[in-house]
């Protein structure tokens, strides 16, 4: 059940040039959060009024872990937050990934899309599963997840500065025949990458779950602003709300050309 609270900053550290890790104490949210869900952070800013959504990248007892990238004013502001400060947050919001216990779980994330994948990975590992993790980026300046036990990490960069040279979906396609069926793909990242994964899923008859992003105002179904174009089960055009119906969708539901 969603909860609004004054969270306390436990840690706020720089990971790479543009990526930061934020740890917040928020016991009720931490207790209920599932991989794929997100929170809204409120900024108390009278000019830029919207809260900002961030995926939950992990749970550490009473704490939430976020990984954020500086892209604009509010993410820039977050880098100045100090341990002990209080900031109002709302969560956990949205739906979550549906986990499969048999076959191979393949996680595909890049850049900011890494955050929910890290949470999903630790969740799968805690259940004794051994996910394969594909992490791709333009170059080695982006943030990559750390290798942890029982998880095979496959890294790629467009320019070959780290790992496989090429995009993450090409990398996955190269490896996929070595994986035990049935394969389940979970992903979060740029639209282009997720669209390529949808095609890959169709080609190999693999179930793909995607975490979508849009601009959000409320984050909880009040405004209907976070609409994206989707398909119903019968293939009819539909509109879905990312904050309430998502952020996780089956790949076949997403209309990438809308």
């Amino acid at each position, binding site marked *: 059940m969603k909860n609004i609270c004054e969270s306390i900053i436990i840690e706020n550290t720089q990971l790479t040039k543009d990526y930061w890790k934020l740890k917040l104490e928020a016991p009720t949210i931490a207790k209920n959060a599932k991989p794929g869900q997100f929170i809204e952070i409120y900024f108390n800013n009278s000019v830029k009024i919207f809260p900002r959504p961030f995926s939950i990248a992990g749970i550490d007892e009473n704490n939430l872990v976020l990984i954020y990238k500086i892209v604009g004013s509010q993410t820039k502001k977050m880098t100045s937050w100090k341990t002990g400060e209080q900031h109002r947050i709302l969560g956990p919001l949205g739906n979550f990934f549906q986990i499969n216990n048999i076959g191979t779980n393949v996680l595909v994330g890049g850049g900011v899309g890494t955050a929910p994948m890290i949470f999903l990975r630790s969740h799968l590992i805690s259940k004794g599963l051994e996910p394969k993790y594909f992490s791709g980026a333009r170059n080695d300046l982006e943030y990559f997840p750390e290798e942890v036990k029982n998880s095979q990490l496959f890294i790629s960069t467009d320019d070959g500065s780290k790992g496989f040279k090429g995009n993450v979906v090409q990398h996955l396609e190269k490896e996929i025949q070595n994986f035990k069926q049935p394969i389940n793909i979970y992903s979060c990242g740029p639209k282009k990458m997720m669209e390529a994964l949808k095609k890959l899923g169709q080609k190999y008859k693999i179930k793909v779950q995607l975490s979508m992003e849009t*601009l959000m105002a409320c984050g909880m179904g009040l405004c209907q*602003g976070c609409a994206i174009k989707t398909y119903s089960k019968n293939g009819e055009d539909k509109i879905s709300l990312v904050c309430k119906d998502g952020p996780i969708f089956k790949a076949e539901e997403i209309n990438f050309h809308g």
Partner: protein
Amino acid sequence: MVDLTIKISDKIELQNPIMTASGTFGYGDELSTVINTNLYGGIVSKSLSLEPRIGNPPPRIVETPSGMINSIGLANIGLSRFLDEKAKYFQNYNGKIIINIAGKQDDEFYTILKKLDKIEWVHGFEINVSCPNVKEGGIQFGTDPEFMFKLIQPMRDLTDKFLMVKLSPNVTDIAQMAEKVQLAGCDAVSMINTLYGAAIDIYSGKPKINTVVGGLSGPAIKPVAIANVIKTYKAVDIPIVGIGGITTGEDVIEFLLAGASAVELGTVHFFNPNAVDEILQFLVSYCKKMNIKRLRDITGKAKI
């Protein structure tokens, strides 16, 4: 003890003057696990139409200085689903329930009104005239006084319940529109709906919302709303429900002084879902400090 109760006409008494603005509070129950929704004097529903509407294609919202622009397009689940799914919640709700109605043509408004008139937990109606009339080439019902009068006049015969018309600020003279509402025998006016607004992405050159022009709301529009309330308070005797950019208890007092009997909270729900709690606390402390026994006594008391 401070008395926060308020009457909007003889038909509706609220435990306090704070209601929700249509389209900014879901269908009324979404926030019920996050905040105490019983704190409101009343809930105004999302604009309902007879049939479900999927609304406008994305992108539908954009953040603008101290506000936002939306083009949701009156997306809603339609009357029957609303009644099926929400009745249970509303039957047990403490405050008053006002249903906001948006039709595409006159008949649609009347049909909905007739159906809801029979439902016990519906205490009143807010008529959204800021929607396009499909029969008349998409022109809004609420832009021309005569045109709007023709729509709302027959409504009085269809219900004895509280009937309020929500006015658009995108007109030459809002007071003239309010006079028509009074003439049609309605119980109150609410104002303002959103202002015209647009924003362009300077890198792609594209408009930031699909319909190019949408509705501006949020703190940025409060002075416009206050001006409209002042003007209307001078022109009509029926109560005014003030809407537009309310964020704090101070804002609420300002609306009451300008001439509003009650107010609706809108965009604030997106950036401070618990605003109602903070506002009520302020209202009580303000009354104590200013030695006001009944909050309703300050309506229209601005020294103008």
